[in-house]
């Protein structure tokens, strides 16, 4: 009996492969290219652009390492940057398509909407088709939220997807929203030469992250020339004069003129065309409501990934897609999202797992904190990237590791170690005699762990 999956992003395609491996007959419906936001307009292309920005910065700093470049300063060819980005994306989307074929998953191109609890209408370029399904997994993902008073015009008011395909590197860019997406774009464009202003309503950029970490990034972005306005509200977007009107902390108003205005204030579940109300699938403003098996209020209809709200990260979606498809195929499994690493690809990188300091204090009261600065780590100095630190939060009674937050070189790779420690529930004292290789960035994690007991060596 057929399992129909709506959406071919990280949640949907992983669910499709998982179900196919349970010998299910699987149909995957997608409106665009497989791979969803992650592959086509999110994780992958942004990181490709960031790599170009990184490389540009590296080359510019060659003199610091004793290497003189012949001739002029390095120049960014935006078209070539875009081309490289597209080739990475293509290789990955082709890979997903290959996996669909290999696992004998039928892929239908079109828009799906519910006719009844077991029937879907598929609309594809004017042609429509009705398919019957025994079970359905909704994985339609999310899309950027627009400002209520200023819809996207795709020219001046743009979203993250538009920002990745701009015709040229803008001279100036105003970013509304100091969250993960806003900070990543600030990091890309400021280093490629744009004058970037970032406006955040909260008192800190990255309000979800540890304050130490956010403050450190704040300083580093400012060093890279980004102007950051916190506790500031956007009042008006004037399309004709290309001006953003902002009210700052004490009611003071200012105007920011820029080539583009990137609105990055969050993402919302993509629900509109599904016709959920018609059959009574429950949802709220965060997304479709699901239980621990990713089932909606209809036990044969599942939802996973960004469309359910929660943690909007591709690797959370992979997990949820696997759980939904396994459960739909008769496995007794439930979602476990206690340890999901969070990565922010700025310069320097940020990565964290578990609780931040504020939430740890709220939940556990007394906590112990160990910090270690990369400025005291040999490898970070060799890399010429001494900014940042590792911070470990430990609960004092059992020495359970509650959270790890890293800002600094290769933070997004280092966090894997912390995720393993927390996933396997290691305690700080079991890691006291742990041996980290020298000289590596990983030593900073060990030192921060030791520092929770005041025992760091190089501190």
């Amino acid at each position, binding site marked *: 009996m057929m399992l129909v999956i709506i959406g071919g992003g990280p949640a949907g395609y992983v669910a499709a492969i998982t179900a196919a491996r349970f010998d299910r007959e699987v149909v995957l419906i997608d409106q665009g290219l497989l791979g969803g936001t992650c592959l086509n307009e999110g994780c992958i292309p942004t990181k490709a652009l960031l790599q170009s920005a990184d490389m540009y910065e590296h080359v510019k700093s060659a003199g610091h390492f004793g290497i003189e470049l012949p001739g002029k300063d390095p120049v960014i060819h935006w078209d070539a940057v875009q081309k490289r980005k597209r080739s990475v994306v293509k290789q990955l989307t082709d890979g997903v398509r290959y996996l669909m074929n290999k696992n004998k998953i039928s892929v239908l191109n079109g828009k799906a909407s519910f006719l009844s609890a077991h029937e879907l209408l598929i609309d594809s370029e004017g042609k429509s088709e009705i398919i019957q399904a025994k079970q359905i997994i909704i994985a339609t993902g999310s899309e950027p939220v627009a400002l209520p008073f200023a819809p996207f015009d795709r020219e001046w008011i743009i979203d993250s997807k538009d920002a990745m395909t701009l015709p040229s590197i803008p001279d100036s860019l105003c970013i509304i929203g100091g969250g993960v997406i806003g900070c990543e774009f600030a990091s890309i464009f400021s280093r490629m030469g744009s004058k970037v202003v970032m406006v955040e309503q909260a008192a800190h950029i990255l309000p979800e992250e540890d304050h130490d970490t956010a403050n450190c990034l704040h300083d580093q972005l400012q060093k890279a020339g980004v102007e950051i306005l916190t506790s500031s509200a956007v009042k008006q977007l004037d399309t004709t004069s290309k001006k953003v009107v902002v009210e700052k902390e004490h009611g003071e108003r200012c105007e920011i003129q820029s080539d583009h205005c990137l609105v990055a204030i969050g993402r919302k579940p993509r629900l509109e065309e599904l016709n959920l109300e018609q059959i009574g699938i429950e949802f709220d403003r965060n997304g479709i409501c699901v239980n621990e098996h990713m089932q909606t209020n209809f036990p044969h209809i599942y939802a996973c990934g960004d469309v359910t709200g929660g943690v909007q990260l591709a690797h959370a979606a992979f997990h949820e897609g696997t759980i939904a498809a396994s459960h739909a195929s008769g496995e007794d499994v439930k979602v476990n999202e206690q340890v999901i690493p969070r990565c922010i690809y700025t310069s320097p990188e940020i990565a964290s797992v578990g609780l931040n300091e504020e939430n740890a204090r709220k939940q556990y009261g007394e906590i112990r904190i160990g910090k270690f600065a990369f400025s005291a780590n040999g490898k970070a100095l060799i890399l010429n990237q001494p900014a940042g630190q590792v911070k470990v939060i430990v609960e004092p*009674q*059992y*020495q*359970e590791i509650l959270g790890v937050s890293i800002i600094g070189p290769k933070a997004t790779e280092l966090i894997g170690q912390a995720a393993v420690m927390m996933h396997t529930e*290691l*305690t700080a004292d079991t890691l006291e005699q742990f041996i980290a290789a020298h000289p590596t960035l990983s030593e900073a994690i060990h030192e921060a762990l030791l520092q929770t007991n005041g025992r760091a060596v190089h501190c």
Partner: protein
Amino acid sequence: MAVEVVMPKLGMSMKEGTVSVWNKEIGETVNKGESIASINSEKIEMEIESPAEGTILDIKVPEGEGVPPGTVICYIGEGNEQVEEKKEKDLPPKQKKERKKISPVARKIAQSANLDIHTLVGTGPDGRITKADVLQALPDEKEKQHNEPTKYQPVSMMRKTIASRMMESLQTSAQLTMTMKADVTKLTALQSQLNETASAQHDMKLTMTDFVAKAVILSLLEHPAMNSQYKNDRVETFEYVHLGIAAALDHGLAVPVIRHAEKLSLIALAKSIKSYGKKAREGRLLHDEIEGSTFTITNLGAYGVEHFTPILNPPEAGILGVGKADHMPVYHGNELCKGTILPLSLTFDHRVLDGTPASQFLSTVKAYLENPVSILL
């Protein structure tokens, strides 16, 4: 060469013994045959006598620690002798404890809450116990506040044995209980009559248990199906009766076994029951004296209990629970008289026999008790 003193094996099923008291310290001299320690295992407490004359050189097992039989507990030798411990390979193979997978966080939480991790069910990969599993096993905060202060104490070897035997019984047999009432009016009259002679000649009194035991033995010989056990898809039936008599102790119970009870006269049986009961209360029962019973009697009459549901003493197929004999109005024809009624509760293993033969057995017991002269003949 120092002499080893090992934990003795007090019976086939003995897995662990504990040194309850050391009578000697390191450096003290002992004579051959002198008691050096008390040990206990399951239901038995016994003294260990020194196998040689000399000085206690080293004590390897502290008081209260359980070790498998064969483990060296101390060395005796010349005063200044060096103890050469046998290498690992020379020792009897250690019993492998089942290894439980548990996360470090979970282990610490379990330890501080005094939770035995062997009682926890792990939901992680390959049964690994996670923090969530331990938290679930902890009594919740509210409950804790109600019950505070909760006292935890390690259980005795006897308690462990009772716990595992009772669980084994309930989990491995198909047991159920049926009840009857026996009119023992005539029996109580006979009892007081006989007790005059018994007191005079044997310096003892016959108890209700003694009569019930005799009735049970006679009934078992008539209904051998009740005197059997279910083992490896076969029913093993015994021609003899090794009768277990449950005896309450201060902190547990013991079931001494009267071997070949079918050969004993009423008075011999009564003497046997009395002396084993005393031994049990004094903790002097030997291992052979608590093994091999084919049927058990348990009497809660002294505590006012009427009918109850005894748990089979594995591998037996039956256990008879005796309640409190009470005076009650009884009809004899149309006439209402004062009678004495004894509640009987028979638990039997339905794998071995069905309801009809079991009730026939119980009826026979009842008949013997109601016509007590037949017991004597």
